[in-house]
């Protein structure tokens, strides 16, 4: 089959460029790690260590080897899931990140759900009301979403919805009373609390999650609504839409059942891309909401100058970002039968 052959070719090419990009990421974090002004040996043994101790530690860390050997060791370590030890706590960076990661994924997933469920209908509606006031209103809402500093929005939202109105819980992931009784299973608190059948804990987790997720969702809504509008305007100018209208299909039917399914393929790409951007927004949002995810891990490691932790976190976020972009790129030919034809 020629069709599946070309899909395989696209996949193979994708895997190769992915490998080169990932190697590039490793070079970046390695180089950043080497140019830092903090001597990693001093960080490990302290500045009062004797010359012998210093030399021994230097050898133990492999820093006396040529750069390419060091790089090879670094890559070999990363491939085996070894991101080094935190200079602040002495714990494994990979394990720490493994613990923080589900919190970020949980936050980003709910955010993308909010962004998609609101952004797509808004974009469709804006396309329908093109160049009239609802379209302008949606456009301004989107532009504000693009322009707002998310950490500031977080602070103001905490002030309004937590301190003044008391609708949601404040910073953190779950109420203190549940923190020690909760049995972690998946790392996703909404799932873990449901699994344990603890409705109180579930409610607490949800009321902590909803505000940061909605704010992050708003930022992705801005992008999703805008792209949906553009795709829909293109689609609505096509002949089959005119045909459907002439045949007497209602405008709602034309919009939601005829045109929207045809823009789903590029939309999936947009949603995958905005998921990647959410990881970035999550760093600042997590800092404001004391959300124990990978963003808070990176920023709190910055203050202790814990470079292995910062670079490990950077690498993991970079890899996720690359993977999501690649996924978006690969989904396209897989979902759209038209691009499969040779």
């Amino acid at each position, binding site marked *: 089959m020629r069709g599946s052959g070309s899909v395989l070719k696209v996949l193979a090419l994708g895997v190769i460029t992915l490998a080169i990009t990932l190697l590039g990421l490793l070079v970046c974090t390695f180089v*950043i790690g080497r140019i830092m002004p903090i001597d990693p040996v001093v960080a490990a043994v302290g500045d009062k260590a004797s010359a012998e101790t210093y030399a021994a530690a230097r050898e133990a860390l492999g820093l006396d080897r040529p750069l390419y050997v060091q790089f090879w060791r670094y890559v070999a370590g990363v491939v085996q899931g070894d991101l080094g030890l935190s200079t602040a706590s002495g714990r494994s960076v990979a394990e720490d990140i493994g613990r923080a990661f589900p919190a970020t994924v949980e936050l980003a997933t709910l955010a993308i759900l909010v962004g998609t469920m609101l952004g797509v209908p808004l974009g469709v509606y804006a396309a329908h009301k093109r160049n009239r006031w609802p379209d302008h209103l949606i456009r301004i809402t989107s532009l504000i979403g*693009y322009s707002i500093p998310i950490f*500031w929005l977080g*602070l103001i939202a905490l002030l309004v919805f937590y*301190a003044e109105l008391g609708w949601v819980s404040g910073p953190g992931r779950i109420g203190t009373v549940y923190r020690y009784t909760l049995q972690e299973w998946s790392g996703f608190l909404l799932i873990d609390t449901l699994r344990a059948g603890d409705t109180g804990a579930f409610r607490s987790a949800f009321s902590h999650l909803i505000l940061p997720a909605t704010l992050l969702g708003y930022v992705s809504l801005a992008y999703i609504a805008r792209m949906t509008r553009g795709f829909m305007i293109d689609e609505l100018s096509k002949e089959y839409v005119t045909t459907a209208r002439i045949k007497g299909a209602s405008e709602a039917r034309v919009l939601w059942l005829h045109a929207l399914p045809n823009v789903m393929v590029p939309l999936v790409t947009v949603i995958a891309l905005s998921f990647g*951007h959410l990881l970035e927004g999550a*760093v600042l949002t997590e800092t404001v909401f004391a959300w124990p995810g990978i963003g808070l891990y990176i920023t709190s490691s910055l203050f202790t100058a814990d470079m292995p932790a910062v670079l490990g976190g950077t690498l993991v976020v970079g890899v996720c970002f690359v993977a999501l972009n690649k996924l978006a790129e690969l989904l396209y030919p897989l979902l759209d039968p038209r691009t499969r034809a040779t």
Partner: protein
Amino acid sequence: MSASILANEPRSRREARMRQLKTSIWRVLRNPSTFFGGAIILLLIVMAAAAPLLATHDPVATNLSDRLAAPGAKHWLGTDQLGRDIYSRLLYGAQPTLAIVLLVIGISAPVGLAVGLLAGYLGGWVEALLMRLTDIVLAFPRLILALALVAVLKPGLINAVIAIAITAWPNYARIARAEALALRNAEYVLAARGLGMGDAQIMTGQIMPALLPSVAVRATLDMAGIILTAAGLGFLGLGAQPPLAEWGTMISSGRDFIFDAWWVAAVPGIAILVVSLGFNLMGDGLRDVLDPKHHE
């Protein structure tokens, strides 16, 4: 293009150029996005330039007896935890914001333009190498790469600029490459080659001018992102260092008092929002104005 202006033929090249410029300026002014965006950007420039004249207080002078004062007659926008006047700090804060934007664009746009031009025009292994490098830098989320870079370079305004510039050039490279690729074999370029022009001359004299409008639009749209990234770095304590008034840093210092003295964090945040909205409106409008596909 409107018919009245073209009713008679321009008599010289100069006149044609002037007319074209006039039409463009008219279009930019008539478009509500560019109009409001331009007004906001102008306001930012005035704030930065006239801060010493407009300020009511010294932006770094502390006055502990007046700390966390609510907005009022004495302090129009209140004071922060050290009793510094927020209105005056807000005005002075326009300076680092404008400086960061101009420096980052000034570094990243020419670099990206050069990389994209070389890649698109020369092709072959030069293109493969340069574009792979571009993709690798693009593979990092911007703020996170800037964060890691500033962390090793040591926090500060200049290092923040360097870090953001390192993350900003690939976008220009991509645009410049795509357009240079399309122009590489355009007839006027072939003609120039036929006249004996060398590659360097063709790239700088013939192709580069054609790339400038798209790069300019991209730069305007990018400015909002640069302001947000710089503010984010400032918020995390990695950008401008105290006592310098910088909006992101001001929000960060207001964070601890958000429930008691909301104005300390709220005011600079509104400034960031308005300014970055201004650049987004400008970029959005410019794209419509300069892109002939959008003309109706």
